[in-house]
Each structure stands twice: as C-alpha cells, then as structure tokens.
C-alpha cells in the first residue's frame, strides 16, 4: 500500500530544529537556526542566493556536519520518535543514456531485492500505485534521464512519499518547468500536506507562489531573520531589506 491518506493531519506532532549551525572551515554558513514545524503545515524557506537555504536542507538531512539537534516529538506526551524524512532533490546525478528506468530507480531506494536480476511484480504494483498519486503511473518504464523537468519532479515526489515520511523536504524546481508545471507542483504539495500526516519544508524562489500557498514563511540569511505567517514576514523590515527590489509584487 502507498501512503495512508487521512482526512486531516492530527497537528499533534512537531519537528524542532534547535540551535543548528553549520560552518565550513573559518566561514559560518548557518548560525543558530531554531525552527518549530507542525505536521500538516507548508513551511517555505526564502532568502537570497547564498543565504544558506540548500545548506539548511543538507544539514537537516544529516548530509553535512552541523551542530545543534533535530527532534521529532509527539506534542501530547513529549515522546521522541524517529523522524522519517522524504527528500526531493532538484536534480539527479544521471548522465544522458543512463540505463535506468523509473521502476529501477524507485526499486533501488525502496527494496533490497536485486534490481539487476528481475522485476518484482508486487514491488512494481506498489511503485505504480505511488506514481498514480501524482498522475505519473505511465512513466514507470521510461528512462529517468529522458523525463522532462515536471515529470521527474512528480516521480521524485512519489518516491519521497513512498515510505510515509513525517517530513517532506524539497527544493522548488527551478529549471525545465513552465508556469503550468509550477502551478501543478504547488497544488500537489498543498494537497499532500492537507491530506497526509506530514510537514513540508520547501525552499522557494518564487515569492508569489509562497504568498499563495505557504502556511509559514522562514526568511533566511545565515540565520533566521524572520519567521511567521506570510503577512507577518512579507510586511517586516527584514523582508524589505532583503528583497528591496522585488517587494512590489506583494
């Protein structure tokens, strides 16, 4: 079975990022990040290029050394649980002609049954079901390196939700996706957080979409300059100083 669909997220789980810092040699890339993320919420991280947005994602993924902690708690009784993260990268490390189908890729991440040997029928069904959630079922036998930007995004999303994550981490697609694709992307994410018991942290470059879809906005520049609702952040002085030129769109 694919992900358990529920009517409303319970709102009782939360993810806390405590005093997270990252440094590379002498340089402080992120310092003292504190976040409080509720399940069922879409949290958009915005900031200039080089503000440390991607570094934040990599630190939460534990892909780079960092200090501080990330906790996943039940709000009722404060029990700590293991946090399952679904991650959607912006792009993959695949060259042209890579002989890897969508089935192959998802099976590699999802199962220990040797992919090079033969297809597993039950696994194929599970993968297909998950792809269907994002209207990508017909892509299952396509070569991953030949997918369009939007198709790849949907495949990666289905892969990310396959083992029922508590937290979905994503980089907004920047290339290869047209206006319709972006609209679809945001609507899908919105739909996900509305109907499944998970929290979303999304790195975004488009303040317009963030204004329309995010529950919470985190303005980042080495540290959290401001966080809160769209209104609270977009009307703040910090926001004005970071996005002085583009502020007109709000």
């Amino acid at each position, binding site marked *: 079975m694919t992900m358990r669909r529920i009517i409303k997220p319970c709102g009782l789980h939360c993810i806390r990022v405590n005093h997270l810092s990252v440094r590379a040699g002498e340089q402080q890339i992120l310092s003292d990040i504190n976040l409080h993320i509720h399940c069922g919420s879409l949290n958009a991280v915005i900031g200039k290029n080089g503000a440390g947005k991607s570094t934040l994602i*990599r630190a939460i*993924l*534990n*892909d780079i050394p960092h200090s501080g902690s990330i906790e996943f708690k039940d709000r009722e009784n404060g029990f700590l649980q293991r946090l399952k*993260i*679904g*991650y959607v*990268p912006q792009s*993959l*490390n*695949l060259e042209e*002609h*890579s*002989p*890897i*189908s969508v*089935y*192959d*890729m998802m*099976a*590699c*991440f999802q*199962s*220990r*049954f*040797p*992919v*090079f*040997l*033969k*297809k597993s029928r039950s696994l194929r069904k599970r993968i297909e079901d998950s792809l269907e959630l994002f209207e990508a079922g017909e892509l299952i*036998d396509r*070569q*991953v390196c030949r997918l369009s930007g939007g198709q790849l995004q949907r495949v990666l999303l289905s892969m990310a939700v396959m*083992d029922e994550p508590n937290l979905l*981490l994503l980089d907004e697609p920047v290339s290869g996706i047209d206006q319709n694709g972006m609209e679809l992307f945001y609507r899908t994410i919105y739909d996900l957080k509305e109907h499944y018991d998970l929290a979303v942290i999304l790195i975004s470059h488009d303040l317009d979409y963030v204004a329309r879809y995010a529950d919470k906005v985190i303005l980042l520049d080495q540290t959290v300059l401001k966080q809160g609702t769209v209104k609270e952040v977009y009307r703040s002085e910090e926001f004005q100083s970071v996005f002085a030129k583009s502020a007109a769109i709000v």
Partner: protein
Amino acid sequence: MGAMFSWLQFDFMKLAFGAILLITPLFGLMGTMIVSRRMAFFSDALGHSALTGIAVGVVFGIGDTNWSMILFAVVFALLLNKISSTGQAAADTVISVFSSLSIALGLAILSRGGNFSKYSSLLVGDILSISKKELLYLGVLLAVVIVFWFLFFNWLQALSIHRALARSRQIPIVWMEYLFAVLVALVVMLSIRWVGILIINALLILPAAASRNLSVNLREYHFFALLFSVFSGVLGLILSYYANVATGPTIVILAAVIYFATYVYGKKGLL
C-alpha cells in the same frame, strides 16, 4: 566441430579458457558499476599502482610480491576513495597526481640495475601462463563479487543516483563506497598479471559502455555488458591463438569494435 575446438587440446589453453570464463563476467559486472559511478579514472589509477605494490614488496624483501601488490592496492583504493568523496572538483587532478607518482616510483625501483624486463609482462599480461591454483583464486573472487552484487547492488546504485537522497534513506553510503573501492582493487590486482596494466581498464569499461548504448533499464544493462564481455573474451582468446598475437589486446580490439557498432546502432535507434 572437432577442428573448431582443436585449440583446447593444450592444457595451457584449457586453463586460459577457464580464466577467460571467470575474468570476463567479473569485469562485465564490475564495469557496469564503475561506468555508472564514473570511476574509470579510479580503476585506471589502481591498475597503475600494481607496479608500486610489487616494488614495495621487492624493497622489503617479501617473497611473494603478490601480497604487497594487493595490500598496496587496497590502501591506495581507500586513499583515492577518501579523496574523491570529499567532493572537490579537483579530485581527478589529485588522483592523477597520485597515480603518476605511484607508477613512477614503481618503475624507478623495479628498473634499478636494468632489471625491468623481468616485470615487463605485467604491462601486457599473459593469460596463457595462469595456473590451476590461480584459477581457483579468480573463482572465489567471482563468487564474492556475485554475493556482493546480490546484497548491495541496490544501495550502490541508489547512491550513484543521488548521494544525499540515499543518505536520507538510511543507506550506509560511506561504507558502501569504501567496500566497493576495495572490491575494485581486489578485482584489478587478482587479474592484472593475466590482463596487463596497459589494457585492464579498457576491459573493465568497454563492455559496460557498449551496453549503455543499447540499454534502457538495469536488467538490459547487465545482460548486454556480460554478453559483450564474455563474447569478446572467448573470441579474443581463439583469434589470438590462431593469429599468434597477445590475447589481452585482441580482446580489447573486439570489445572496442562492439562499442562502436552499438554506438552507431544506438544513434540510429534515436532517428
């Protein structure tokens, strides 16, 4: 029929044939992952380190220089893996520096007193000189690689698709990278005497590269890589016997022909 297999009447040809049947699937399999992970440079550097390993053995007066060669290669592989996994853009330059230094050291030490001719067979390899015991080593190695493939192929493939994504799925990526590096070192070292330093990398890369020209999924990729590898190996051995030329280069020439044929075929398929 009898005439076709007349070359098999000699014991050394039987052993060589056995060696081909073990080495080529081994290389076909390892090659798929080496090409996927873009480690061609890495395996090439490892091949070069064979000379240094032997030289180290000679300097320290070790009786069987195979041991020093294998040990050196494993250490070298761990070091190279460490350098590449830092993810710096200059990793290929650094690997190249180490590789050149290691081959220069090896050549310098082994050529002392004008004795290098003793080791020159290492450069081209001589599959006709393989013994039964050495054939057994290759068989064990092939079994190890197959077991490794069944256990860890998915993880290795996942991490070559996206490292951070693999890490987010609790795949022990650092372990996998080191294990695979050591496995490449063992495969290269245990076959280098039969295949030769100069062409070992071609044998690892060509079948997988040719297979990529045709394949759209991982099952086809493995199937064609194994097929091309074994086919060019067996045919290469027979042709080299009748044409009286070195076996390794003959196999490489055949594998290269297959590569170009599949390249042209693959391009046509796109039109």
